[in-house]
């Protein structure tokens, strides 16, 4: 990899489920990307993707075991552009209620809570399927995405109590409005899966490439 920065997107592989679809989607929009567990490859990459499928507890444990928590935090500190997806976004907060309580990375203040609805409301959990996102703040990663666009979600936990200054998108489910995208400086994160969200998702990924 050498000392310089390659124009490569490093997709962090911390053994948290299916990363293939993230890789395929980035390749489809013309990115050069590599799925990696190697901190040096992450350090050499131009941009970093922090995906995540699965439970917060095992995701956090794997991330730390592989030393990739440090690699991610260093990428953020070195001002690389980072996109976090789904559980990747949740792990950026201080704590998740999943798996009996998990200490997370604490990049953002706030906690990850379980969806709770009254039984009579018959709201299905997980929140699975296509839903709209009201983007705020005009972030470049969300530019030129038509207002009626919907994205693919699959999750039972959501981010609570985040600071309004990092809010970048919100979504309504079962009467509850939750944070579905956050952004600050060189970091942007989505609760939904852009890699599974059809053409609007691919547009978001190509915006990230250009960002």
């Amino acid at each position, binding site marked *: 990899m050498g000392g310089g920065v390659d124009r490569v997107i490093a997709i962090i592989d911390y053994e948290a489920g299916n990363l293939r*679809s993230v890789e395929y989607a980035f390749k489809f929009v013309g990115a050069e990307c590599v799925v990696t567990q190697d901190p040096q490859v992450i350090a050499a990459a131009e941009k970093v993707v922090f995906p995540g499928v699965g439970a917060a507890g095992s995701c956090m444990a794997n991330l730390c075991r592989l030393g990739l928590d440090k690699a991610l935090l260093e990428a953020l500190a070195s001002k690389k552009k980072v996109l976090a997806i789904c559980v990747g976004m949740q792990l950026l907060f201080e704590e998740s209620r999943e798996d009996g309580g998990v200490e997370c990375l604490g990049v953002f203040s706030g906690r990850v809570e379980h969806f709770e609805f009254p039984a009579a409301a018959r709201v299905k959990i997980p929140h699975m*399927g296509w839903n709209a996102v009201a983007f705020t703040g005009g972030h470049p990663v969300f530019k030129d995405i*038509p207002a009626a666009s919907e994205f693919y979600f699959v999750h039972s936990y959501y981010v609570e109590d985040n600071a309004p200054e990092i809010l970048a998108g919100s979504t309504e489910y079962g009467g509850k409005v939750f944070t579905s995208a956050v952004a600050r400086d060189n970091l942007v994160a989505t609760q939904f899966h852009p890699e599974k969200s059809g053409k609007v998702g691919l547009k978001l990924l190509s915006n990230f490439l250009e960002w």
Partner: protein
Amino acid sequence: MLSKRLIVCLDVRDKKVTKGIKFKGNVDIGDPVELARQYYEDGVDELVFYDITASAEARPIDIEMVEDVAKNIFIPFSVGGGIRGVEDMRRALLAGAEKVSVNSLAVKNPEIISEGARAFGKQCVVLGMDVKKVAVSTSIPSGYEIVIQGGRKPMGLDALEWARRAEELGAGEICLNSIDADGTKEGYELTLTRLISEAVSIPVIASGGGGTCEHIVDVLSEGRADAALIASMVHYGDYTCSGIKEYVSSKGVKMRPLV
């Protein structure tokens, strides 16, 4: 607000998509990856691939096909048929499938649901249920029985009880197929769909019997399904996914708009 989903099912046999009537007599329709791409372009929300002969031929699901699909379409898709255990599930998921569906395997070995959920997360495990209406009895109190082998083999297992148990075991979704309605194009089994959908807190996909847009409206509203599965409606070119979604939306059922 979460949209209801329109899902197209592609039954695959020898690398061709095929469609049968009540699991008897199949007609080849086309190449699975090419068809998947067409439906994706046409606005389908999700796809399901069933390798319909993998089980009978005791061979694993066609992983090359799964990879091909994952490289070309960027919406969720699940695969089923020929899943023999957790390792087969892993291979399908690593190839790019979003979810894996188990049906008769789970009836014979319910633990596969919890093993899959533990290994990959509940959202990856879909329970496929083939259900037949029968007389109410002490062993089948709901009057709906689980059958396997394309409806040929009754299992003495109550469908409602099985759905609840599968949720407890860790299924993330149920794909509910009425054997009585399947292939008839006379409408989904609304009573069954509502019964199951209201009994569990996980999403339920209604399958079997969809022949008109009105049938889809009915099962997503009256039937309380979270998603409707179709096949022959679009396979023969009678309808388009975009046309169906437009009609269903116009009747007040929330669908993902095409932008």
